[in-house]
């Protein structure tokens, strides 16, 4: 059968189409240059001494430290809570699961201001849970905890979506076989499901972390922009932009480099994995 399809596909060949080629190349080139230009501008319009002056601006290191601490904390929360949630969602398929999945995706598409309002209404001093916390003597808004909560709220959907689809991608019969071999549900999860979904979980964690690093609106409304206390790197860019354009640019460059490095490393490793898997599985079926 394979020789048959081969010979027919050989006989037919797409005619050369100049319009098609120039059209696609033109449209692709246009969007690509539009997306690259701002990044290039960020780099080329900054000379080294300005960059050095920018990154030694007094608000930079506290903001960088705060960003690293809060995004790490939110990542830990997202992964520890999100992995079991994604696993549970992936094992079931009903209306309730669809509703929960939509709900947990919501923060990713909500306008940041809406997320900020929602967080205040839940955890603010007058909020649903916040009022009760306030009576116990805890106040969440405008604290480090609020920064972490805002980052967790907006970044969790990225991890959840990637993790759920990674778990769904696992061949069910591998899990069934593992159980017939005497493995408890916990062993099936840790020895089979987790390693198989690993690349997807890592990709989701990276996307989620990058989103937390870039979080702006909800943090501003819910945690404020207090230098050294709740001012993240992203908020510092916004603040210095008003007083010192060079410093804002230097900070932006730091964020771009961090984000690019992370995304590139991710792309390379996931592709290498995919190639490894596809390249070696062609043997049988």
């Amino acid at each position, binding site marked *: 059968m394979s020789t048959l399809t081969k010979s027919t596909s050989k006989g037919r060949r797409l005619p050369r189409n100049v319009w098609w080629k120039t059209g696609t190349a033109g449209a692709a080139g246009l969007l690509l240059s539009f997306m690259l230009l701002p990044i290039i501008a960020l780099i080329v319009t900054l000379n080294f001494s300005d960059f050095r002056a920018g990154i030694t601006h007094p608000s930079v290191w506290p903001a960088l430290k705060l960003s690293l601490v809060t995004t790490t904390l939110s990542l830990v929360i997202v992964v520890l809570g999100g992995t079991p949630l994604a696993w549970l969602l992936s094992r079931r398929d009903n209306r309730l699961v669809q509703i929960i999945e939509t709900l947990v995706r919501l923060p990713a598409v909500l306008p940041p201001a809406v997320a900020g309002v929602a967080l205040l209404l839940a955890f603010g001093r007058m909020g649903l849970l916040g009022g009760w916390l306030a009576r116990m003597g805890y106040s969440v808004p405008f604290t480090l905890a609020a920064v972490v909560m805002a980052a967790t709220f907006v970044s969790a959907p990225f991890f959840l979506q990637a993790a759920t689809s990674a778990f769904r991608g696992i*061949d069910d*019969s*591998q899990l*069934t*076989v*593992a*159980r*017939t*071999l*005497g*493995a*408890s549900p916990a062993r099936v999860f840790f*020895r*089979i499901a987790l*390693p*198989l979904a690993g690349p997807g979980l890592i990709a989701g964690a990276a996307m989620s972390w990058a989103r937390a690093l870039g979080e702006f609106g909800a943090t501003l409304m819910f945690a404020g922009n207090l230098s050294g206390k709740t001012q993240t790197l992203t908020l510092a860019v916004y603040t210095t932009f008003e007083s010192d354009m060079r410093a804002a640019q230097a900070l932006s460059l730091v964020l771009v480099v961090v984000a690019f490095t992370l995304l590139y490393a991710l792309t390379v490793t996931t592709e290498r994995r995919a190639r490894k*898997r596809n390249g*070696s*599985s062609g*043997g*049988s*079926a």
Partner: protein
Amino acid sequence: MLAIDVDAKIDDFSLQVELPPSDATTVLIGPNGAGKTTLLKCVLGVVTPTRGVIRLGDNELLRTASGTNVPTEDRKLGYVPQRYALFSHMSVRDNVGFGIQGVDRETRSAQVSELLDDLAIAHLAERATPSLSGGESQRVALARALAIGPRALMLDEPTAALDASARRKVRQFLATRLEAIGIPTLVVSHDIEDVEAFRGRVAVLEKGRLTQLGDLDELRSAPATPFVEEFLRGAR
């Protein structure tokens, strides 16, 4: 000895099957969607029947009336699914050793080596499973299932994923093996040549019901349904 008497309902599909006790191989045949794999899953404990009894030797795996339902992981059934479902992140050795528990590392390693030798796949021990051919995968999957010392074997379409020449070899290999192992075995198949090779009894399943049960000669002398007639002519 494996005896099955179950009713199961999944969405709109209803399965109602009674298979009298047998020690030998039972080949389950039937059109697509007849419930063959579902029946296998009932025995494995992955699908819970609404009513029924499944007995294996002196043990009851399921008795809905008394609420007995042994969990899959405690049933000690060897399962080789369609396309084998080898753990793709583990070597052949780790796949086969996965089910061997409660022994020290050396013992497990020795048991795995013995199985690999026995199925003539010792040379594959350190290979990554995605790089195996269909026939090799089949042997690894069987070794993995046998590693737990199963009390019965469930094979779902063991030859369907193979090309014609591999299929003939694997079928021959499996037939000899199953006879040597000598535990109750359920084989789901679409292939008349599987039925001929595995001997034993043939259970015909159509639309969730058992339409004929007997050995191949009995089916040939009195095919109960048009499906059986067509199947015996070698049509898939």
